[in-house]
């Protein structure tokens, strides 16, 4: 059995006084302190980051981490755009399956706010195809293309997507570490300045700084000693073409469908068992697509159900989605996101989520998407 035995996240937001590796160090130190596990007991580290090479001319972060921790253990780096974190967790799980009884840290971080928006937008577009780059597209633009198809096919309006942002901002108002701890109204979302028609700034996840880390172990003694623990039931990755133009379907991200089906099969549980989920809401439309592609909602009914606020904390629905505030409001430091998602599910499963705690949680899920769906990681956890 592979278990999560600890989670630590820095504040997410505009953290100008701290560097990428200040954040990495705070996150790892915080995790070691919280778990009361000495760094000498860690067998390997998995580091997830997307942009440091492009924006800061700063690669080989693995060895920088070794320097910070004064260690010689292996440090691996994972990059799969916004799914870098989910992929790092997946790889760490494979490492533990191959090396029973070991303990690893998965840390993800991103430093994005040092740069002008155009530079960050251009850097992020490295995760899209050359043709999409030459068309002047951006990630909001790519998801806007998907949103237009979805809204037109199922006869929905902007408000159906906008409700996702309202819900996630409400959840973030209960999360101290969130980038935006304030609520927004549907009118504010619909009236927010456009980024890529029809998506306004309040449909889009922000450019954030932050780092998150979790500790995974298959060492039974450590699992028994841990103050809080939950187990990984499954973690699956699927891929798709980098370019939207090579996809057959444009009302769905097939990588999520494939990874989700595999993850549920491997975990041996039903969709209805999931009580909390962290979904990849990089843009409001993405959470609706995610809910449908994971099989929680039928294809095409997501818009209507989103506007019912079914998955909002305190509503009568069976499932609460993005209690952290999601990428939208908790913030989206790209490399950290996939790890923060697992961390949030861990907090929920172990009763540590404070004001945003959901009751009777036995199973949780995290969906992390890279690019416009070129990579998807689905991880299922159990109490």
């Amino acid at each position: 059995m592979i278990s999560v035995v600890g989670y630590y996240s820095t504040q997410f937001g505009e953290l100008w006084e701290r560097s990428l590796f200040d954040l990495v160090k705070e996150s790892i130190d915080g995790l070691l302190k919280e778990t009361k596990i000495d760094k000498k007991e860690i067998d390997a580290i998995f580091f997830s980051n997307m942009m440091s090479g492009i924006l800061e001319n700063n690669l080989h972060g693995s060895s920088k981490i070794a320097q910070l921790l004064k260690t010689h253990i292996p440090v691996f780096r994972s990059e799969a755009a916004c799914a870098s974190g989910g992929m790092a967790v997946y790889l760490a799980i494979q490492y533990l399956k191959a090396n029973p009884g070991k303990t690893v840290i998965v840390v993800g971080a991103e430093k994005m706010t040092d740069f002008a928006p155009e530079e960050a937008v251009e850097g992020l577009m490295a995760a899209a195809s050359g043709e999409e780059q030459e068309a002047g597209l951006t990630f909001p633009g790519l998801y806007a293309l998907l949103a237009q198809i979805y809204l037109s096919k199922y006869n929905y309006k902007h408000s159906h997507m906008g409700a996702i942002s309202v819900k996630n901002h409400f959840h973030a108002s209960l999360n101290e570490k969130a980038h935006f701890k304030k609520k927004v109204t549907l009118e504010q979302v619909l009236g927010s300045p456009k980024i890529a028609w029809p998506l306004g700034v309040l449909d889009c996840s922000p450019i954030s700084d932050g780092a998150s880390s979790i500790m995974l172990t298959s060492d039974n003694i450590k699992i028994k000693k841990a103050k809080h623990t939950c187990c990984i039931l499954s973690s699956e990755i699927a891929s798709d073409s980098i370019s939207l133009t090579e996809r057959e379907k444009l009302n769905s991200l097939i990588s999520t469908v494939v990874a989700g089906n595999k993850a549920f099969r491997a975990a041996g549980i039903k969709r209805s068992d999931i009580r909390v989920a962290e979904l990849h809401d990089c843009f409001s439309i993405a959470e609706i697509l995610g809910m449908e592609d994971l099989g929680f909602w039928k294809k095409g009914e997501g818009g209507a159900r989103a506007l019912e606020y079914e998955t909002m904390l305190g509503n009568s629905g069976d499932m609460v989605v993005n209690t952290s505030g999601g990428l939208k409001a908790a913030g989206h430091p790209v490399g950290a996101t996939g790890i923060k998602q697992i961390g949030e599910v861990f907090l929920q499963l172990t009763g540590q989520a404070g004001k945003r705690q959901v009751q009777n949680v036995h199973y949780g899920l995290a969906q992390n998407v890279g690019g416009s769906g070129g990579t998807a990681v689905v991880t299922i956890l159990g109490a």
Partner: protein
Amino acid sequence: MISPVKIWRRQKNVRSLLNKKGVVLSWTVIYAPPNDFKKCAPYSVLLVQLDDGEKLVGQYVETQQEEIKIGMRVRTILRKTRITNHEDVISYGIKFTNEL
């Protein structure tokens, strides 16, 4: 900046995509552009299915953005794509205009 060699490699494919016709599958208007497109924003981008089945993305060069609709017919034309430094090799690619 894109390497001149990359631009040279790409332009060989551009020729085969000229004067093709197709239908708009989706569209957007970009207000927050990447660096090299800053001077053109806001601009509209179309996702088009050509009549031979191939799908392409490219900017719409007409100024009447409010006329864009899913299902509208367009054709491909050659245009400068990104604005980099004045001394760089100029990058040309496919954009869309209304079908004649």
